[in-house]
């Protein structure tokens, strides 16, 4: 009926006074938001500001305690995600919701509310390829989703919503797993669709660049409250940033301490010698990786995701066995055991820390003590755990790294995405560090935390740690590294000191045309 009246398919969305509490914490406090039909709306806020909670309330994943939802001006009741879908609301969650064991095609078809009881695959495949022909980008449909790279998964998530013909798309940090080119491509497409008034988009992001390039309007949350918003054209990024952090002071960025000229080169601390690893199918994922990292040096590994970065981090953190090759730390062969990590002071922040570096159901304090729970003062007589020192240490780290949590006793899985990251970093950086391995450390963090975490990494370098930084964000690599390496198809394709190279050269090697 709306379509007939206005010719606009896009939905208008409005929330009035949304409130949602988790225990004592008000994750949302009287939040009102308005999205015009056919607009591209950005939702900004620090980690833990309540952005994900707000959109999950809209989608019926959580029930707000107060407040109402209007769609095209009419009161809507969304009790569960199924209701939301029927109303034309679709969401890409911060964590993927595609089913890993199903293929792309199966994922698309089963997500349809009217999926047939018996599926005629020949017919569905024809319909799908006709659908894909109308889309400006595609994703593989015949492989199980578990075998897709992050970028492909994200495209498939968005394709799924378009396939379901949803008229308002909510995207929770959709670009954090994409390269800047992929992100521009996908957001550009969505922007085109909003301009044509086919869909409205609400996007949560931490990247101002995306806000200014694609969004029409913006809403800013801080600590669960709406603190501002308006048309993007009328606001500067400084203004938005100011609203996001409020009166919190951002600490000054740690500077790179230059080594005195003429001093002898520092000793090599971390050496990767011919690392070779294969995946389940027997395909080489690490193909003779050789790399040296000296003390007081950051070596940044750039590369398009899926070129062996994840296996490399897994190998270094003992999650993947090597087919061949050795890791040396100060000339000693390094086996990734708990004892060796402790003795050689090796620390790290892997990708997806919630999955790879925490136990989600255990408390923040326990997770923060993973490195030290079996040593004094946390342990007496070598076996008796004392929770007291563990808790007080956790309190200190929570304060120092500004981890937003209700208490040290909350389950770490309940923290917002960015705060899990901080909690893990707090654990890993709190002691004396000789070797630091970090993968995408600022993935999904707000700009205040980004600045802070990069400072911490730089501080570690300045105090003599050998840092291996694996990142898909080239700006991060160029800002922090002393030496840049490019990883392509499982091997190190290029190494150069940061002063002797440039973006174009690195980009060429990343794309594999050297």
């Amino acid at each position, binding site marked *: 009926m709306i379509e007939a009246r206005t010719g606009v398919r896009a939905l208008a969305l409005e929330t009035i006074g949304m409130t949602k509490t988790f225990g004592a914490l008000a994750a949302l406090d009287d939040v009102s938001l308005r999205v015009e039909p056919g607009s591209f709306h950005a939702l900004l806020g620090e980690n833990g500001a309540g952005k994900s909670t707000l959109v999950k309330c809209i989608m019926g994943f959580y029930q707000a305690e107060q407040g109402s939802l209007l769609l095209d001006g009419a009161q809507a009741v969304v009790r569960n995600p199924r*209701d939301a879908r029927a109303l034309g609301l679709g969401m890409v969650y911060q964590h993927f*919701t595609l*089913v*890993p064991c199903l293929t792309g095609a199966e994922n698309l078809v089963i997500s349809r509310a009217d*999926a*047939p*009881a018996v599926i005629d695959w020949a017919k569905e495949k024809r319909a799908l390829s006709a659908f894909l022909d109308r889309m400006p980008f595609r994703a593989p449909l015949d492989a199980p989703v578990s075998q897709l790279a992050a970028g492909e998964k994200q495209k498939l998530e968005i394709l799924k919503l378009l396939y379901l013909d949803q008229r308002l798309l909510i995207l929770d940090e959709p670009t954090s797993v994409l390269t800047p080119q992929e992100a521009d491509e996908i957001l550009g497409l969505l922007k085109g669709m909003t301009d044509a008034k086919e869909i409205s988009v609400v996007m949560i992001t931490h990247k101002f660049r995306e806000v200014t390039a694609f969004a029409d309007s913006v809403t800013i949350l801080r600590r669960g409250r709406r603190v501002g918003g308006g048309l993007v054209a009328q606001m500067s990024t400084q203004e938005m940033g100011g609203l996001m952090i409020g009166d919190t002071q951002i600490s000054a960025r740690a500077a790179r301490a230059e080594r005195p000229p003429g001093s002898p080169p520092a000793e090599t601390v971390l050496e990767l010698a011919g690392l070779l690893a294969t995946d389940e199918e027997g395909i080489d994922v690490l193909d003779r990786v050789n790399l040296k990292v000296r003390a007081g040096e950051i070596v940044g590994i750039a590369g398009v995701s899926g070129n062996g970065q994840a296996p490399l981090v897994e190998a270094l953190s003992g999650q993947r066995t090597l087919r061949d090759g050795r890791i040396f730390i100060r000339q000693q062969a390094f086996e990734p055991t708990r004892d060796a990590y402790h003795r050689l002071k090796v620390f790290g922040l892997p990708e997806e820390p919630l999955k790879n570096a925490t136990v989600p159901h255990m408390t923040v304090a326990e997770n923060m003590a993973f490195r030290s729970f079996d040593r004094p003062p946390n342990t007496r007589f070598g076996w008796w755990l004392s929770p007291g020192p563990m808790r007080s240490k956790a309190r200190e780290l929570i304060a120092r790294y500004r981890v937003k949590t209700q208490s040290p006793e909350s389950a770490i899985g309940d923290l917002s995405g960015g705060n899990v990251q901080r909690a893990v970093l707090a654990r890993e950086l709190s002691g004396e560090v000789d070797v630091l391995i970090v993968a995408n450390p600022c993935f999904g963090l707000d700009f205040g935390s980004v600045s802070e975490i990069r400072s911490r990494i730089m501080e570690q370098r300045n105090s003599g740690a050998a840092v291996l930084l694996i990142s898909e964000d080239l700006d991060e690599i160029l800002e922090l590294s002393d030496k840049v390496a490019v990883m392509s198809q499982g091997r190190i394709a290029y190494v150069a000191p940061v002063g002797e190279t440039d973006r174009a050269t690195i980009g060429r090697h990343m794309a594999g045309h050297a």
Partner: protein
Amino acid sequence: MNDSLVVIVLLSLVGGALRVSTPFIFVALGECLTEKSGRVNLGLEGTLVLGAMSAYATSYHTGQPWLGVLAAGCAGAMLGAIHGFVCKLPRVNDVAIGIAMMLFGTGLAFFFGKAYIQPSAPRLGEIGLGDWTGDAKIASALQINSLLLIGVAVAIVMWWAFANTRWGLILRMTGDSAPSAKAMGVSVDLVRFLATTAGGFLAGVGGAFLSLYYPGSWNQGLSSGQGLMAVALVIFARWNPLRCVIAALLFGATGAIGPALQSVGVTQGYYFFNAAPYILTLLIMVGSAGSKRAARDAPGELSITK
């Protein structure tokens, strides 16, 4: 050993595989269905025994063995439903409940089954696959029961349905990623409840085979752990119903090694060969523990592989 002896041994292996494997097929398919939904039901041993008892008792009272099969399925479905219901309560562990249900099922069967140890009930008929050969040995080795054929048919239907029906996809989705299922508005608990119930039905039917066909009577030592071994079998079959059938036949054949050798006069190591299925179970568990392929095919939500 001369040729005819080898033929006899092979024939009794095949015969044994066909005869002994049916309960394995049903329990494994039931477990496969349950595990595909993301839950483990270790109680199928109890389901099997209760199914055997119900089938025997029903057949005895009504004189209709197929009614007994149905009763066995219903008894199994009831146990499955209890398991499915209890597991959906918060903080309940499916493995622990499974073990409780195993004890509950066997206990119930022994309690009500006391009266049926003596009397003899009508048994299920058989189909002679080898009758046309005119050779008595071949004919007796290749005698099968229609439950075997039904089991194979169920496996094929399940295998097809997992890939080609809405229900199949929803089941796999629930088993692989509960958050995705929830995001799609699927009731995870309901799917698992139904899968566990249906899985219990299949396992109960497997029990009916034990008491109504082979060995073909009701007593307390009827099952020798088939219900538990099915769990290993499902892992070995990597959650594929068709491979479940093959694995079940393999288990049946290993179980027949001892009797087969005995039939040609090899009595040495008889007990050792009788233990072959259990040794096979162990080897499978050891082998699949480090198998990356098994890990990849496992439903993501399974508590034993998570």
